[in-house]
């Protein structure tokens, strides 16, 4: 079912090329668990500069808690740098409705007041429900609303993209 999906490693390369000339040399990279966290690690390695890494789990800030409750597997958000005054690039695998990004921005502000937040995503699949746009996107594609685009990572660290039937997550 991967027809029409771009190669994840190739798309990551595109994203790196777009970010490299534009991202501040000291911008912190904050990945949203779990796909965004893998990407943040890769981007920090491949984009020159001093990029402190952070990881964020937005489960406690989601807007669907009242209907879906708390699922298992919530991770602890780790922001090991001072957010106040920081230039931050928020990183996620797939940008869809924009609700996860909204939650992540809210959570970041509970750590401090950043100087600015940019958004980098591997895939922008359209379908926004909030006025949120990616500053950098590896690829843009149209995907039916009842399908999920899922990023996976194998034992060797190689990334790949797949499609699954939609599950509220």
């Amino acid at each position, binding site marked *: 079912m991967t027809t029409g999906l771009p190669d994840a490693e190739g798309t990551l390369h595109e994203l790196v090329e777009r970010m490299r000339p534009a991202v501040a040399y000291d911008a912190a990279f904050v990945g949203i668990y779990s796909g965004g966290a893998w990407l943040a690690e890769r981007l920090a390695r491949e984009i020159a500069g001093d990029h402190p890494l952070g990881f964020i*789990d937005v*489960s*406690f*800030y989601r807007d669907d*808690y*009242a209907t*879906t*409750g*708390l699922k*298992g*597997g*919530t*991770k*602890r*958000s*780790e922001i090991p740098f001072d*957010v*106040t005054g920081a230039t931050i690039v928020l990183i996620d695998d797939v940008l869809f409705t924009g609700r996860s990004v909204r939650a992540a921005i*809210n*959570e970041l*502000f*509970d*750590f*401090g007041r950043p100087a600015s937040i940019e958004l980098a995503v591997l895939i922008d699949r359209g379908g926004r429900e909030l006025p949120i746009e990616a500053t950098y996107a590896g690829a843009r594609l149209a995907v039916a609303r009842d399908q999920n685009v899922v990023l996976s990572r194998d034992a060797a660290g190689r990334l790949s993209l797949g499609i699954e039937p939609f599950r509220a997550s």
Partner: protein
Amino acid sequence: MPNRNPQLNADGALTHLLTLEGLPPAVIRHILDTAVPFVGIAEREVKKVPLLRGKAVFNLFFENSTRTRTTFEIAAKRLSADVINLNIGASSTSKGETLLDTVDNLVAMDADLFVVRHAQSGAPHLIASHLIAKGRTHVHVVNAGDGRHAHPTQGLLDLYTIRHYKGDFANLTVAVVGDVLHSRVARSLIHGLTTLGTAEVRVIGPRTLLPAHVESMGVQVYEDMRLGLANCDVVVMLRLQNERMKGALLPSAGEYFKHYGLTMDKLAAAKEDVIVMHPGPMNRGVEIDSAVADGARSVILPQVTFGIAVRMAVMSILAGA
């Protein structure tokens, strides 16, 4: 009264927390896992998450306990809930009626979650059953200690602390020392430990302070403290309530300390990397020596910190069910 476990809803999700007895291990593990990310909230500039924004948590304390009430209050506030504290002296007449009338009134004020402390065993269960019977499935109950029965959030925070320092329960020997007979803390912890497959759970104390059939809870009984502490990974000291001295259960505090007070000397029988826990408040010089309580093996203060995260996890799981 419904005959299924009133703590779980039709989907098997936790909707009231009344006791650890009979809870599936997966439910207990889910609470412990959920508490992990909550520990980090205290280190942020804004020590709050918006999960329970707009929800009303009523602390319903029919028995005084400033400490437990405070930890629940902090936990609820860190979840952004509105917290209302009610310290209700138990009235002497028709307690059952009064209790449920109080509950109905508070539900009419749009209560979402009750944290209940009561001197009578079963009071939180009574409230939960009442809510279920009335079809109020969106209102949840947390038992904050009922009589001699259960104190599940204390049991959970003890389990969290043990797992934090020692990892998997399958290789551990845990000793619970002291007045097990009157201790709802001990009861909840023992149920939790056996449910999670702890290799060996021991109780240590004089026979007068152990329940008659304590062995049926799946524990080994030791009246000699040194023998009981041998090779333990975890030692949990229980508070000796002063009123126990007045009855015929114990000769004196001094005599108790001599046999069952935890000193560095007695602790040497346990493993070198043993951790020492106590639910508080401590009676220094009665059940525990200051050198141990303030020593390198003590994790008594981390227990308090973990307790807030565990209560946050419980409330956010219940309110989302």
